[in-house]
Structure formats: structure tokens, C-alpha cells
């Protein structure tokens, strides 16, 4: 569609705005990669004390971490600033977005793309490859497909969380911190086996906020391991479907948010 060329142009414009501060950009790249190191240190430190968590070994948990981290970082790169909506509304620069013959979300995403997240994206991907090689898995065509789809599904799920948070921001202006807590909390949780949580919470972060589908469940599929909490064996393979469902739900929340803005007069 010709529109993609337009979004590419907008993307370039957004990036041009960011790259003007090149020195600090390099620092930010390193900074986000180091932030990821922090989470890794936590995993390392815990496994320095115990051999397994919720039935998974150190390398296996790193697999979970790598998939989830790749997904989160990519989503953050693309739509991480969708709750910057509030900033636009306050500055009065949101109306302009409505005046253009383009989708609102597409414009915001293109304009606010967070290039500095590239640091974390690349390190996560690298880690993912290293872990997959290290694990010496029993490769089948299905597992190979899952290895490719899992990070994509993770990206979609986290993207859905960001977009939904943005949509909610239209309704409740001060909700940003609460939605951030849930989004970033889900990202934190997604790096660990969901089984660490109590059953109620584990189900919540599987079926309400599909955090489990961003790392833990795809990892189970790849490892060929059953879920200790008793979830069905086919569920991990449904990760892409969960991602689609999350995307649809987020889109509806976003649309209702924009409608609310137009209806209330901003």
C-alpha cells in the first residue's frame, strides 16, 4: 500500500528529530542494553543459589528471558510511546494528527519511534540465538517455526499492552503510571516461569494479560516440557493466536480512546 511509503517518510522525520543529539544517543543505546543486563544479573544471581526455578534450569530460564526481552524491546521500539498521547494532548499537538489522512496510531508510532531501544533489541536477539544453540534442542519443523514466531508473538503482545495503555490514557488521564506498572510489571514477570506466581495470579497473567505467552509458554513448546501447573500441552503452541487476540483487544481499546477524545473535545 502506498501508505507504507508515507509512514516510512514520517519515520525518517521522527528519527531525524532524535538523531540530532547523536552523542547522547549512543549513550542511550548502551544504557538500554545495560538495563537488560540488570535483569540478566538477577537471573544469574538467583541461579547462583539454586539449580532450578519452577522446574526450569538456568539456561532454560534464559531462553524464556531472551524471547520475552526481544519481544518487549521491539514493541517498545515501535509503539512504546503510545502513552505519550497524553503529552500530545497537553501540548495541543494531537489535533494535527487528526487532520491528516492517515491513521492516528500509525502517525504516533512513526513519529515517536524509540531508536535507542535498538540496543536492547539486538542484544536480546543475540542472546536468543546463543541460548538456542546452547540448548541443543530436538528440532522439528514445528519447533523451528515456533522459534521464529515466538519473538514476533511476544512483540505483538507487548505492543498490544502499550497500545491499550495509550487508549486508556484518553479516558483516564492520570492512569499512565498504573498502566505502566502493569505493562512493565508484565515485562518483568514474562522473563520468569509463570509458575512462580500463585495459581490465581498465574492464570491472570496468562489469560487476561497474556504475559505467559511472551516467553514462558513458547519456551515450553521449544523445550518439549510440560507445564508444572497443569496447563494443557497444546496451549504453548497457541502463542501466536494469543498474540492476535491481544492485538484485536488493544485495537478496540485504542479506537474507543480516540473516539472519546473526539467526543469530549480534548
Amino acid at each position, binding site marked *: 500500500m*502506498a501508505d507504507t*511509503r*508515507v509512514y516510512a*517518510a*514520517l519515520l525518517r*522525520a521522527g528519527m*531525524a*528529530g532524535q538523531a*540530532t543529539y547523536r552523542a547522547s544517543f549512543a549513550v542511550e543505546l548502551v544504557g538500554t542494553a545495560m538495563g537488560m543486563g540488570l535483569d540478566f544479573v538477577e537471573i544469574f544471581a538467583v541461579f547462583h543459589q539454586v539449580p532450578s526455578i519452577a522446574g526450569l534450569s538456568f539456561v532454560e530460564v534464559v531462553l524464556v528471558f531472551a524471547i520475552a526481552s526481544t519481544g518487549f524491546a521491539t514493541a517498545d521500539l515501535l509503539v512504546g510511546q503510545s502513552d505519550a498521547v497524553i503529552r500530545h494532548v497537553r501540548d*495541543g*499537538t494531537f*489535533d*494535527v494528527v*487528526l*487532520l*491528516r*489522512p*492517515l*491513521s492516528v496510531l500509525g502517525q504516533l508510532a512513526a513519529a515517536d519511534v524509540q531508536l535507542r531501544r535498538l540496543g536492547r533489541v539486538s542484544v536480546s536477539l543475540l542472546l536468543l540465538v546463543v541460548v538456542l544453540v546452547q540448548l541443543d534442542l530436538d528440532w522439528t519443523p514445528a519447533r523451528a517455526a515456533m522459534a521464529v514466531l515466538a519473538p514476533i508473538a511476544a512483540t505483538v503482545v507487548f505492543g498490544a499492552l502499550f497500545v491499550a495503555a495509550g487508549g486508556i490514557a484518553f479516558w483516564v488521564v492520570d492512569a499512565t503510571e498504573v498502566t505502566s506498572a502493569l505493562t512493565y510489571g508484565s515485562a518483568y514477570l514474562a522473563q520468569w516461569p509463570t509458575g512462580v506466581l500463585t495459581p490465581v495470579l498465574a492464570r491472570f497473567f496468562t489469560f487476561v494479560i497474556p504475559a505467559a505467552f511472551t516467553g514462558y509458554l513458547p519456551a515450553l513448546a521449544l523445550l518439549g516440557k510440560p507445564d508444572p501447573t497443569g496447563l494443557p500441552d497444546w496451549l504453548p503452541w497457541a502463542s501466536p493466536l494469543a498474540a492476535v487476540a491481544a492485538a484485536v483487544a488493544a485495537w478496540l481499546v485504542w479506537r474507543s480512546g480516540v473516539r472519546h477524545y*473526539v*467526543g469530549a*473535545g*480534548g
Partner: protein
Amino acid sequence: MSEPGNTRREQEMTVEIEDLSRHFVVRRSVGRLRREKRVVRAVDGISFTVGKGECVGYIGANGAGKSTTIKMLTGILVPTSGRVRVCGLEPVRQRRELARRIGVVFGQRSQLWWDLPLAESFRLLAAIHRLPAERAAARLERCVELLDIGPFLDTPVRQLSLGQRMRGEVTAALLHSPELLLLDEPTVGLDIVSKEALRAFLAAERAETGTTILLTTHDLPDIERLSDRVVVVDGGRVVHTGTLSGLAAEAGVDRVLTVELTAPAEPLGDVPGTRLLSVEAGGLRQHLALTGSAAAAVAAVSARTELRDLTIAEPDIEDVVARLYRRAAATRSSTVD
């Protein structure tokens, strides 16, 4: 009227507004616990149309509802009730399609990319509207020439003066040759030179391309140059429609032409298009109320005598509106009696 009424009805109106209203609910905390609800009727049942190729001035004082109307026309705001169609489309529902057919200039807000050079904004907009390269270049060149924006095409928008920025905004709005151009207080805060340049450009543009224009302002000279018709709005309601001179006449407020002559002259009581108000300094300075075009009156006066200087005093929009109300009230009370 050059066009018979039924022809206009057959043609599709570019802008159709019927009984349009927009209410805002304002909540205020009274004391510690209670909250008071107040309904602000920003726009309260207005109706008017703008035909293809027309230029209509939408005047009113600050807070009269002009900007709210424009927001509803562009799809940024949903009406509380009533019907609005622009270029045959519903603004909110068909926002993106509408955005391709109209151009908007907001006096208070910018549609350009703040950190990038002006030329880059035009390039982006050309891409957004999928304009072929030659067409975009041709449009740009025309605007560069008429609005003299060439010198600052490479300056980041945030470094431009208000006058320069507004010229850029108008160029941007017209880049894709829209059917309808909406301008919301485009001349606010501009110096006289920029105002004139803008007005001249819009007049020339209209003459050449027949673009329909709807212009809101509380500055009457904006209208004088461009509009066929005016719609006056106050308190969210239309209080008058008609021509500008008709407006002044209706309101009974005069535009006053003050002429300073090189030598005292006889009172200029019979200059066509004027009405003598007063004479000062033995005929050296005379005040004439304009009943027609100012240019014609000046020409007529200079035909009779030599002018040294002249000023034109515009009626204040608030005065005009206030007088319209008083007249309307007077008419109402007299009919009641």
C-alpha cells in the same frame, strides 16, 4: 445575486451545517464535597451553507463559537446534535477521506513539523497526500513566488517568525489543491504587511483555482478583501448573514474614512458611496462614513480635491455584534407592541 436560487440548490454545497450544536459539561468543585455541573453551549443550533467556490467570512467575538464550529467541520470534535456535511462527507466518520479534500490553517496551532526545515514539511505533506512530484513542485513554486517564502525554506519551523510561519501554513494547507480551505483566525498577531500578503494571496488563489474558502476571524478587514458573504455568530448562535457592507449598514456602525486635505475645501457632502459625518479645521480634515467600497470613495474624493493623508477606522466586531443585538431586540419589542 448572480446565481438563481434553484441552481444553488441543485449544486452540492461544499459545507452544510444544519442546527448544529455542541455542549460541554463543566464540573466545578463547590466547597469540599459537592460538585457543580454547568452546561456550556459553545455552539447552539447554527445553520448555514457554503456553496462551491464561495468565500464566507465567519465572524464573531472571542468565545462566540467559531473555533468550535471549525473543529466540528474538520472532524476533530463530534457535534452534540445537528447535521454537518463537508464536501458531502461526514467529518468524524470519514475523517481520513475528508482530510484529503480539505486544507486547514489554525492560527494558534501548527501543522508543520517543528524541528525540521520548512521545505521538509512540504515534502512530507506531498508524500502524505500522494502528490506526484511535478504537481507538488509546481504548487510550491507558485506559493514561494506569491508569498515570498523562498528565503526561509531551509529554516526549522520553530525558528520562524509568526508571519513567516503563517505563510508556510497556508502553503502547506494548499499544497494538495483542496476543494475547501478552512482558516481559523489566520491573521491573529500578524503585522500589517504579513496580513496584507496573506489576504492578497488568498484572493489570488481563489480567483485562479476557485477554491471554496471559509474564514473565521474577529478582524473585519480580513473579510473585506475576500468574502462574498459573512455569517456573524455570537454566543453560539448565528445573529446575521449577508454581505459585509450590509452588515455595517444593518448594525448601523460605520467605517469612517478620515481625509486630510492639502488645502481647506468645501464639505464633501455628495461623494458617491459616502455620507458626510463632520468637518474639522475649516474643511482641512473631514470625516466620511463609508457606505460602499473604501477604494472607490478614496478615488472619488481625490478626483475632487487633493489628498494629503487618509485613515480608515474599522468598526470593532464587538460593537457590530452589540448593535446587531440591540437592533434585533428593538425590532422584537416593536413587533410585540
